[in-house]
Structures are given as C-alpha cells and as structure tokens.
C-alpha cells in the first residue's frame, strides 16, 4: 500500500525569516494523524533567509540528519563542532544524552533550502556524536546513494545512526528508473525534494511524500521534465 502525503497538505509555518513545510507534526503544527511514520519522526523542508537561522537549542535521544538542497548552513554545537555544509554533504547528529546546537544560513545573500530529518533512535542515552558525509554528485545520479544507516551499513561512506533505518538519496533524469527491494516486514517512505517522481506508477510532485507498507518491490522513476531528486527511507 502506498499512501501519499501531498505537499500542500503538510503543516506550514512562515515567521518571516524562514518558510517551513512539515510532513509530520512539529512545533506549533500538531496533527494526531501525522505524528511520524515508523521511526521517522520529522521531515521539515526549510528555506531560511540569508544570515538567519535556529538559535541555540537542545535535543536528546534523536538522530538528526540535514540534507542541503541549495545554499550553505553553518552548524555549531556543544561538542565544539563548527562546520559549514552545502549540497552533496549530509550532516548527521546523534543527540543521545544531550546536545545543544545552532544552525544558521551561512550566507548573507542567498537563502538556504534544506530537509531536516529526525529519526527516533532504538536506544536511549547514546554518546552524542556528529558526522558529515560528503559525496560526489554522480554518486546519487541514476542510483541510490546511502546517506545513513545502522552500524556496518557502508563503512565510512555513510553516517551511522542508532536505528534500524536506512536513508538514501537519488537524482533521476526524466524516464530514468531505479529499483529497490524492501525486506520482509519493512516499510518505506519517499520524499520528493525536487522535480517529480513516480513510485510504482503513482506520481509524486515536489514536496510530496509516500508511506509504503506491504510492498516489496519499488520502482522509482524520474517523472518530470526536470527529473527528480528524492530521499528513500527503509524502515523497520
């Protein structure tokens, strides 16, 4: 079964300095029917004005992944990590016992457009950690690039998260397709970041998501003149 979560049905907030779309309940947007999917708790699509961002705030027991679509984000945290990340780099932070961090648009001129993802960890009180994984743009073109997964998924080529979940990114040209097999009892989520895609023949536009259950074989295709960029989650 594939259940589509349309872009415009998502929660929305625009306090002026950012434009945010929430696939699941977040902050002041609360919808009991959309609290997450399996261990996937948050997918926020944020466009943040130049020089603005999220001031120092805390997290505990959460796997937080940031995927930049456009622009650059400056990260600073209580583990003394300070970085600026852009497209084709993901930031993965395990909040574990507790992390305080801030995220700001690193540019004074251009907006930053990103997906912020939270996955609930399988364990509490993990040691807080921060990882950045950079990859070549070709690594996700016409194929699925593993961004994050449990320990041992892909050596140092992906971020380790404390959950039985895998996160892939892909960019497909129009008409191009990739196949993915979900294991028995596994669930999937597809989030279209750019363009349009189809999943087993069902069309998804930019910002749409799809919850997948009781399906084993997935065919994901670029279904827009500009192709598609999307994230695929393989969830327990």
């Amino acid at each position: 079964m594939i259940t589509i979560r349309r872009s415009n049905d998502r929660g929305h907030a625009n306090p002026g300095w950012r434009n945010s779309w929430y696939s699941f309940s977040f902050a002041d947007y609360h919808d009991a029917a959309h609290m997450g999917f399996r261990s996937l708790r948050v997918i926020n699509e944020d466009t943040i004005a130049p020089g603005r961002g999220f001031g120092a705030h805390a997290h505990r027991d959460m796997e937080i992944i940031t995927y930049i679509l456009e622009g650059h984000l400056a990260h600073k945290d209580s583990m003394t990590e300070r970085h600026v990340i852009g497209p084709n780099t993901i930031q993965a932070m395990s909040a574990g016992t507790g992390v305080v961090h801030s995220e700001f648009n690193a540019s004074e001129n251009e907006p930053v457009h990103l997906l912020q993802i939270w996955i609930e960890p399988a364990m509490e009180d993990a040691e807080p950690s921060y990882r950045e994984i950079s990859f070549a743009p070709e690594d996700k073109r016409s194929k699925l690039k593993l961004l994050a997964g449990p320990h041992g998924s892909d050596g140092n080529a992906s971020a380790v998260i404390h959950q039985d979940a895998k996160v892939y990114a892909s960019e497909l040209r129009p008409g191009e397709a990739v196949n993915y097999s979900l294991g028995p009892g596994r669930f999937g989520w597809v989030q279209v970041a750019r363009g349009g895609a189809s999943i087993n023949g069902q069309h998804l536009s930019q910002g749409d998501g799809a919850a997948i259950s009781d399906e084993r074989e997935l065919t994901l295709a670029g279904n827009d003149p500009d192709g598609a960029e999307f994230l695929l989650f393989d969830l327990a």
Partner: protein
Amino acid sequence: MQDVNVVVVFFSRTGATEQLALAAAVGAVQGRANIRLRRLPDVADEATIAGNPQWKENRERMNKEYVAPRETDAAWADAIVIGIAAGTDNVSPEFGAYTGKIGAVFADGSGNHALRASMERAGLIVLPDERASDALTQARLLGRRAAEAARSRRATTSG
C-alpha cells in the same frame, strides 16, 4: 518522568562563559530537562566593545544565536542557572560582583556548602569559575543537578 524547565542565563563577552553556559545546558538536558539559553545584553558602550575586536566579533555572533531573557522565562522556569564570569562585574556592578564571587568560591571548593545547597534548592545555580581546569565538567554537573533538584521540588510541591 515529570517535565522540568531550566533557564540558563549568561553573560559572555568573548565566548568563555558561553562555553560554560552551554555545558550547563547540556547537563540539564542530560537530566532530562527542557532548556532555554539566554544571553544578557551588553551594557557597555559601543566604543568600549569596538575596542575589543574579540568581544565585538563574538557579540555579533552571540546576538544571532541567543535571545535576551524574557519575562515569560521566569514563569516557565523550574530552575535558573546563572552564568556570569567569576570575578567580573560587567552586567550590573552589584549583581555581577556578588555572583562572580560566589562562583569563584564554589570553583575552588572552599565555598559554603550550605549556601550552595540552599541556592540550588531555590533553583538558583551559579556557574563555576571558567579558569578552573574542570570548569566544563563542573558546569555540566551543575546543569544536571539543577534539572534533578527542580524535578525533586516539583514532586514535593505537587505531591
């Protein structure tokens, strides 16, 4: 587990006290508290701040990352951690000097433990001297104790 709220209020010019405040906030989060981090606004005139490039640069950064304390914070908080560099008086001369001295005494271990305990019971906790070698660890423990003490007070008052 009962929700508790900890506000960490600090003043920092060049970032050292900010690090302690961050450590205290992390400690409070470790103690499973909700936290708010607040930086007191500078009272020094612009010329003084401009005369210290490190202060000026850090002030610009910190003004982005932290908001000033708000009136609603006090109503929200179960505990307030006060972070002002030990031995300095750059917030208000009286308040800064007082809290700075308390911080310095706590930091070298010679403090009045009863005073410290009563302040912690009241939900007012002063960060250690940033010059202490284990200042960050102390700050983290203080933050954690603030959360735990607040939770224990909550249990007592709501019980």
